[in-house]
């Protein structure tokens, strides 16, 4: 801690913006992404149709950069800055909240590395026209598969803890009871996202479509 200064700075707004972008749009995008990708659980054709739908939205580049890439770059970049400014002490004080504080930083970094690689392989290399076949082929590589699982679990965990943080840090949950409830809700979201994410990965890996019975009989 250094000498007290009273000059106002931009850190309040930047910090709030970081917190907000974690939920909107980054968290919301993660939800959308898992939702649209679960089309793979129905069939290859459904997945390709859903992908095409998304790949052909009007003003695609604008939407991608404005609503996904830039907010994510900001959240990730500022997140790393916040990380460096903190000083983790979980070995001296191993309380649950302190563990979550530390894991929030590592899972954020893993998510960042994973998302960068994921964008490179499934968005850049395929010129934004990736299909079921592209992803399924990548999944045959055990290293890709492992990185997918780690990335999905890290992102889900990070979002789950983030929801709890968000509820506390905006004063939406302002009593111990409400914060515990927000924590349980965050845990539910984290676990649900993790499970759904892994199911989607398994679908690609094993050409597995558990919801194919939903399709009309041919």
């Amino acid at each position: 801690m250094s000498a007290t200064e009273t000059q106002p700075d931009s850190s309040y707004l930047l910090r709030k913006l970081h917190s907000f972008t974690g939920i909107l749009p980054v968290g919301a995008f993660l939800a959308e992404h898992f939702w649209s990708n679960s089309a793979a659980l129905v069939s290859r054709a459904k997945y390709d149709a859903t992908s095409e739908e998304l790949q052909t939205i009007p003003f695609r580049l604008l939407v991608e950069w404005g609503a996904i890439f830039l907010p994510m770059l900001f959240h990730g970049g500022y997140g790393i800055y916040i990380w460096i400014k903190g000083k983790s002490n979980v070995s001296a004080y191993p309380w649950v909240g302190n563990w979550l504080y530390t894991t929030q930083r590592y899972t954020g970094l893993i998510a960042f590395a994973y998302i960068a690689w994921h964008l490179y392989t499934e968005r850049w290399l395929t010129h934004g026209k990736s299909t079921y076949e592209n992803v399924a082929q990548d999944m045959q590589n055990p290293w890709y598969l492992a990185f997918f699982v780690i990335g999905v679990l890290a992102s889900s965990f990070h979002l789950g803890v983030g929801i709890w943080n968000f509820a506390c840090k905006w004063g939406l949950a302002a009593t111990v009871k409400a914060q515990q409830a927000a924590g349980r809700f965050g845990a539910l979201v984290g676990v649900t996202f993790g499970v759904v994410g892994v199911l989607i990965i398994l679908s690609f890996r094993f050409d597995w479509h558990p919801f194919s019975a939903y399709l009309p009989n041919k």
Partner: protein
Amino acid sequence: MADAKLVIVKVKRQTGPKEPARWEEFSLKWRPSMNVIICLRDIAENPVTRDGKKTTPISYDSNCLEEICGSCAMLINGKARMACSALVDQLEQPIRIEPLSKFPLVRDLTVDRQFMFESLKRVKAWIPIDGTYDLGEGPRVSPETQEQGYPLSNCISCGSCLEVCPQVNEHSQFMGAAIISQVRLFNLHPTGAMNKNERLAALMGPGGIQDCANAQNCVHACPKNIPLTESIAAVNREVWKQALLGWLVG
């Protein structure tokens, strides 16, 4: 010697902020209800280390000996604790005693907590009741508000909540949980609320409430069981309303 119960204490010593640190070990005679301050007093009475070397009494702060003045916070077995309420019988030996690490060191176990008082001044942690004329009686405070405020008023500015906070460190100016909780206390009071917006504005400045990252260590460390995480959430809500909607709703 063999039958007398002994207490082994290791103290981190440093003659000044720029001097090198060293550890000294002491062997003290056990007494019933012995606490860490009693250990430090016994050492002062007979400043001889365990291996028989003469040394100086240890510098430390303490006053009330009943966890009410806030001066005796230190690291005991690696954790921030009040030395006067740290009972020897409940501590693992050798008992390691170090100064708080987040405040500038003065000497041995004495640290300078001026930072906290400067922060309290920044947020105007008081209720202005003085005028050039008699201001008359203040407004009545509802029992409900009193009940909310009383636990917050128990803060003894010991600094434990800052010591355990990962966001308080040499790269940060974060004022810490105690200060935020005091803002809540003074904003609760109807007279104090007259300066509400000034206090909230101070918490948007450097080292303000935005630096809290919700690790929630403070609430575990507070010797007075102050609901710090509730205070931070409640004040956070007020601050962002003021910051983001202030221009809209005045």
